[in-house]
C-alpha cells in the first residue's frame, strides 16, 4: 500500500474537502496517485444515492438541482453536486456556467460543488465523473447529483454512473418528431416538465404525457415543476426516494457496463499507436487508400490477422498513449 495514497484517503474519509478536491483533479488528469487513492477509497463507497439529471441546454437542469439540493440539505442530508460541461473541440478549454445557478444550495451546510469538463469522453459525462462520485461518497455525502452536458440521445453514460436519471423537458420542446429525433424520450427513470410557469405549459405537458404513453408500456413518473417558483420540487424528491430501493438493485448491471466501457476505452487508447506503427497496418491502409479494399473489410481482416498471429501479446499495455 502506497503510504501517501493511504494518507490522502484517510484525510478524505475524515472530511477534508481540500484533499478531496485535489484527488478529483488527479483522477481527471490521469495521475497514478489519484487512482491509488481511489482504489483505497472504493471499498468504503456505495452509501450515497446518485441522481443524474439530463435534458437540453437551458431546460433548467441546474436550477432544479439547486432547489433539490436545498430541500435535501434542509432535511439534514449532505450533498455533492457534479456539474459537467462540454470541452471545446477547438481550444480544449471549457467554460463552467452552472455553478452560479446554485445560489440556494450554496447556502446549505455541507454542500460540495464541483464543475468538470467532459474532456472528449462520450455519453454526456466526463470519464472522471464516476471517480469524483466515489470521492464525494467517501467524503461523507449522502446524495450526489450529477448534471450531464445535455445533448440528448448520446447521454447514455449518465445512466451508468447514476442510480436514477431524471430527464428535464420544457413547454417549448417543439413537436413529437423533434422529440423522437433527439432521442430524449428513450431515457429517464423520471420525467420532469420544468418551466410550468410559462404560458400554455399545461397543454404542452398533456402532449408530452401522451407521446410518452404511446412510446412506452410502463411510462415513467411524470412531474410538473417550476424551478423558478420552486414548485413541484418536493414531489420530485418524494418520487426519487420512492424509487430509490428498486433502483439500487441495478447497480451490479450498471457497473458491469461501466467496466466494459472503461476497458474498451483503455484498450483502444493503448493500442491505437501500436497499430499505426505496425507494418501490416500500413500495407492494408495502402490497399484501402488505393481503392483495392473497403475500410469495413480491411478492419475485420486486420484484427483477425492480429489475433491469429498472437501478436496482441507484443502490444504493450500503455496508460498514456
Amino acid at each position, binding site marked *: 500500500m502506497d503510504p501517501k495514497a493511504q494518507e490522502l484517503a484517510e484525510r478524505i474519509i475524515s472530511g477534508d*474537502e*481540500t484533499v478531496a*478536491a*485535489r484527488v*478529483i*483533479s488527479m483522477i*481527471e*488528469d*490521469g495521475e497514478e496517485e489519484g487512482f491509488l487513492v481511489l482504489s483505497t477509497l472504493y471499498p468504503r463507497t456505495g452509501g450515497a444515492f446518485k441522481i443524474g439529471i439530463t435534458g437540453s441546454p437551458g431546460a433548467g437542469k441546474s436550477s432544479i438541482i439547486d432547489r433539490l439540493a436545498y430541500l435535501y440539505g434542509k432535511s439534514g442530508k449532505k450533498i455533492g453536486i457534479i456539474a459537467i460541461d462540454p470541452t*471545446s473541440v477547438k*481550444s*480544449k*478549454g*471549457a*467554460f*463552467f*456556467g452552472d*455553478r*452560479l445557478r446554485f*445560489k440556494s444550495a*450554496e447556502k446549505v451546510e455541507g454542500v*460540495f*460543488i*464541483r*464543475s468538470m*469538463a467532459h*474532456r*472528449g*469522453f462520450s455519453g454526456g459525462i466526463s*470519464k472522471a465523473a464516476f471517480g469524483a462520485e466515489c470521492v464525494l461518497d467517501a467524503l461523507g455525502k449522502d446524495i450526489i447529483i450529477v448534471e450531464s452536458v445535455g445533448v440528448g440521445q448520446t447521454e447514455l453514460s449518465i445512466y451508468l454512473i447514476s442510480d436514477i436519471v431524471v430527464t428535464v423537458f420544457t413547454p417549448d420542446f417543439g413537436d413529437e418528431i423533434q422529440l423522437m429525433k433527439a432521442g430524449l424520450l428513450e431515457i429517464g427513470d423520471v420525467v420532469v416538465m420544468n418551466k410550468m410557469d410559462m404560458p400554455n405549459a399545461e397543454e404542452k405537458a398533456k402532449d408530452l404525457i401522451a407521446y410518452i404513453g404511446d412510446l412506452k408500456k410502463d411510462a415513467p413518473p411524470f412531474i410538473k415543476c417550476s424551478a423558478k417558483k420552486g414548485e413541484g420540487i418536493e414531489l420530485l424528491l418524494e418520487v426519487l426516494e420512492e424509487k430509490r430501493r428498486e433502483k439500487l438493485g441495478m447497480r451490479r448491471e450498471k457497473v458491469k457496463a461501466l467496466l466494459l466501457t472503461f476497458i474498451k476505452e483503455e484498450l483502444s*487508447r493503448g493500442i491505437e499507436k501500436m497499430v499505426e506503427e505496425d507494418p501490416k497496418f500500413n500495407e492494408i491502409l495502402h490497399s484501402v487508400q488505393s481503392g483495392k479494399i473497403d475500410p469495413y473489410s480491411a478492419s475485420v481482416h486486420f484484427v483477425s490477422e492480429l489475433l491469429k498471429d498472437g501478436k496482441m501479446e507484443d502490444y504493450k499495455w500503455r496508460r*498514456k498513449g
Partner: protein
Amino acid sequence: MEEKRIKVLIAKPGLDGHDRGAKVIALALKEAGMEVVYSGLHKTIDQIVNMAIQEDVDVIGLSIMSGAHIPLTRKLMEKLKEKGIQDKKVFVGGVIPSKDIKLLKEMGVEGVFPGGTPIDDVIEAIKASVKK
C-alpha cells in the same frame, strides 16, 4: 485526453455589478485552452475561497470595478493563508489605478491587469505563473 489543464476561477467579489470584463476574460481564457469557472456576481470572499477549494483551481482571478480592490484583495490573501492554500495564484483586473499596483503585488498578487490590457498578456502571465 488525460492531461493537466489550467483551471481558473474568475470571481466577482462585493457589490460591484459590472460583469462584462469578467465574462470577456473568462471566454478568452477558455479559448486559450483553460477550464474556467465563473463565480457569478456579488460573492463574498469566503464564498470565493470555498469555490477555489472545491474546484481545485490553479488560479483565482478577481474582477473588481468598484474601487474596493485593496481591502477585498487583502481579505482574500488572508483567507487563502488561513485555509493553507497559498499555492493558488492570484490575479486582479478591472478599474485599478496604477498607483495601487505595487501594494497589490506586495500582498502576493501575481499580476494586475487594469482596463485596456491586451488579453494575450493576461494569458501569457497566467501560463507562466502556473508553470513555476
